[in-house]
């Protein structure tokens, strides 16, 4: 018996607060490759230079059993302070930054600008035969924009990966003074 496993693949966005120390990213990536988990996107940057915390955002997919494993395995790494499943903990916002270069001529350039305007992409570099657009949005929006640009020119794309945060006033991942001193539920 046991709980019935939900065999459907789900996409999840997980935020992880870690000590900013050498090797921490390798530990997280090694965990995913060593155990065969998917990584769709992974971003990392320091968020609290005083406490020395970095925040990692991982977009992954798997069955509910695998997702639970991923979270438990992450939580058990020694430099990991907190693991949050943004997809299930309430509404959240995802954004990605992309730089898209499109090389084309003639009318297609006008079309590129028109589409960029619609997507609120900014042209940040231009020659007579190319633009570089800067675009932020959720990954779907960026996919759509890139798709359109590919149709009207030769493109080169660089994407920053997904960053995400919960909506609302609730501060779920305390960075400064957030020592969970009396919380015995951390890690494994």
């Amino acid at each position: 018996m046991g709980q019935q496993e939900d065999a459907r693949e789900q996409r999840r966005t997980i935020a992880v607060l870690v000590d900013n120390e050498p090797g921490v990213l390798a530990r997280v990536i090694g965990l995913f490759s060593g155990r065969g988990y998917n990584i769709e996107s992974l971003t990392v940057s320091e968020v609290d230079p005083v406490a020395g915390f970095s925040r990692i955002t991982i977009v992954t997919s798997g069955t509910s059993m695998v997702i639970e494993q991923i979270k438990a395995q992450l939580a058990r790494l020694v430099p990991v302070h907190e693991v949050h499943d943004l997809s299930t903990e309430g509404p959240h916002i995802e954004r990605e930054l992309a730089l898209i270069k499109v090389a084309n001529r003639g009318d297609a350039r006008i079309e590129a600008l028109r589409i960029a305007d619609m997507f609120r992409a900014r042209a940040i570099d231009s020659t007579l035969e190319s633009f570089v657009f800067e675009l932020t949005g959720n990954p779907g929006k960026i996919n759509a924009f890139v798709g359109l640009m590919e149709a009207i020119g030769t493109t080169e794309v660089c994407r920053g990966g997904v960053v995400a945060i919960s909506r609302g006033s609730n501060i779920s991942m305390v960075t400064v003074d957030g020592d969970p001193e009396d919380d015995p539920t951390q890690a494994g």
Partner: protein
Amino acid sequence: MTSATQPDTEPQTRMTGAAIVLKALQDQGVDVVFGYPGGAVLPIYDELFTTNAVRHILVRHEQGAVHAAEGYARSTGKVGVVLVTSGPGATNAVTGLTDALMDSIPIVCLTGQVPTHLIGNDAFQEADTTGITRPCTKHNYLVKSVDHLSDIMHEAFHVAARGRPGPVVIDLPKDVLFADGPYRAPSAPRRTTYRPRTVPDQDAVEQAVDLIASAERPVFYGGGGLINSGPEASRLLTEFVQMTGYPTTLTLMGLGAFPASDRRFLGMLGMHGTYEANLAMYNCDVMINIGARFDDRVTGRISDFSPRSRKIHVDIDPSSINKNVPVDVPVIGDAATVLARMIETWKRKGCRPRQDALARWWEQIDSWRARDCLAYSQDGSVIKPQHAIRRLFEKIRGRDFYITTEVGQHQMWAAQYFEFEEPNRWMTSGGLGTMGYGLPAALGVQVAHPDALVIDVAGEASFLMNIQELSTLCQYGLPVKAFIVNNQWMGMVRQWQELIHGGRYSESYTASLPDFVKLAESFGGVGLIARTADDLDDVIDEMLAVDRFVLADIRVSKEENCFPMIPSGAAHNEMLLGQDDRMEHETSDDGMVLV
């Protein structure tokens, strides 16, 4: 910070990195280190020489050092400590570290490293030790500044021992060992993140107890977590089993956590477990897993694993829950703490086992037991391996003994035919299945328990894998007994080839074996040989009487197979009980690919 001993201005005694290492080891209560020197760790060896503060056991190979430390740790409940040099010293330790990770054994391994300014330069004896050991340690550190050294040393012991134990590597560049830095005594751990949960959620405990009380066909399934939790966990399990009268089985890692002589003990479960244990698991309605991890050696084909039971899983590591088998009641916490709460809850609620149902369940179990699945007949003069191992056990029963094993058939027979009454007496490589584990592990056990009887039940092929440690036994006068169940085959490999690969015995014969008697003598020990069943008892007696290390070469029948056996990819109710038990079906394709 313990204020009584620490004045306000924390005294930061300054000393060299090497001295900090030694001081930290002493403050952590370390009394022995298993190691092997080399250029990068010479400052530590110098410090060992001048302070003489910690005993050092010089092994003959770094893999041996880690296994010895594992034997030490498993037989004492303390952290085992290893000291090796950079490069090849560290890479040689990798198998041991992986073994300790898989079996959750607390180890702190100090590795030398080239000086910080040369890291990344392909310097002599440089290896990316933290990179190589990241996946085979619970945690690791590269110490880049002597200022952090004492904190890291203390934290490493904390991380190795707390929660689910495991190996921790500290990589020490040589310049850090020479530099002067502050020494801080062990205080509250520096790291605030690593605080594993030990106290269970009371709601989960109540739910578990209700389920346990409602059971008609219950079974306790205990594992290595009981041993790691400390002897109190085993005591409490025994108490709980006695209160409930429920049948109890243990994994390979858990043997000793419940007394084998108790009639409620069904023996070991899993691939080579007993008929009654595996059928109880298959047919139970409530399974109470305490400190075991639903390993594939235990579950067999997962889709048919105990299909009709509701499952309680007690584990200190949340990542073990729902990993292989979905469970109904997870309880996260330390085994002893959880068991104490369960017993307290059971009493407070006035729970009673359902006697009628339980009596019927026992009747059923006793009928399985009557199959006597471990029976063998020793007839003729050729020694049966089962008989050799059983006789050894009968001769030492009641004595203060510790058993280690190598890996293979002999290991499974030892698990089947020895009876362990207490925890920490049985040391075997379960998760990694490392041939060559048993001899160095026995060495470590003997260092910890100099007066006890320590026996490595070995296969001849495995024994050759770390045989260099005989020299260590000789040097320190460690009277380890190696009981070599010599079938002249990699028996377990031969068995699989016979049963699954059409009898094509590819490269599994152990040709050109040494003369073990002469070998023992050349290393300064005693060699004995038993060729026939008539020799056996005398050889065992003599082995036990000698107070030096002994190699007993027990020539056993060559083609014996280890039963019961659940072929890979099969379910618990598809067990083979003996040579005449034909496999119902050819092993499935899914089964063939399993290890």
